[in-house]
């Protein structure tokens, strides 16, 4: 582990930038190319890189598998929560125009609605990607 200085330092330098870039892609997603799917994968890539260089044990200390599972499930809840909210406020399922009070411009609702949706997608994709990585990487090799 100690002799891989370049890898370790490189990873440490790169990781925050990868995370920031993921967030950039995420928040760019409502009016340009980008969005939750790509951002979630990029976000997860930072953790995968960390796990590859520092070992699975250290990565699990940073982010326990439990958290990844919870993220994977919570994202769906966030996504559907936005849908339910618009439904409770009198619109159809996922009709963002109803997210705010009627005196607001409906485009505000559309704007924040899609951010909420993309946030749900980000959380789910991130959680599922990391969980998948843990599931495959953590599997004990059985030689027969």
């Amino acid at each position: 582990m100690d002799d891989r200085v370049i890898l370790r330092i490189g990873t440490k330098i790169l990781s925050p930038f990868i995370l920031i870039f993921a967030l950039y892609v995420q928040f760019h997603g409502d009016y340009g190319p980008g969005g939750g799917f790509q951002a979630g994968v990029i976000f997860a890539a930072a953790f995968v890189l960390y796990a590859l260089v520092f070992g699975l044990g250290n990565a699990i200390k940073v982010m326990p598998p439990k958290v990844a599972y919870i993220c994977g499930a919570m994202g769906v809840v966030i996504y559907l929560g936005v849908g339910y909210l618009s439904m409770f406020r009198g619109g159809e399922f996922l009709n963002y125009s109803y997210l705010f009070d009627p005196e607001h411009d409906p485009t505000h609702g559309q704007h924040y609605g899609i951010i909420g949706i993309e946030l749900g997608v980000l959380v789910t994709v991130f959680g599922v990607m990391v969980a998948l990585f843990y599931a495959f990487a953590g599997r004990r090799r059985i030689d027969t």
Partner: protein
Amino acid sequence: MISFTLFNYWAVIVLMMVGFYTLISRDNLVKKLIGLNIFQTSVIMMYVSIGKITGGTAPILMESGDHGGEVAVDAGHAAVEVLYSNPIPHVLMLTAIVVGVATLALGLSLVVRINEAYGTIEEDEIARKDNAR
């Protein structure tokens, strides 16, 4: 004579057949999954080719510096002149890619468990072990 304008679709057909043949002919479960993935990827390429319009650009509002309500409406009017590619196939394929990833992950996890249960991922050996009991 192969028309060059339909080049994409020839590539799609070749990929599709390569994937499908791999899927059918290989005994190794991982190779089967690879074949399946190539097969699915060819479909993604087909959809993306459908959405492309010659000279069309990415379907993003050109003039919009802001993304707020009124500015976007103005930008929408100004942008009528610009030729956009059809975004719908791309959006559909975003979904299809996610489905492909999910299928691949589930398939590989099954392969891992098959390997643990049988000690092999060759289909004929698995069949032999099942019949031996």
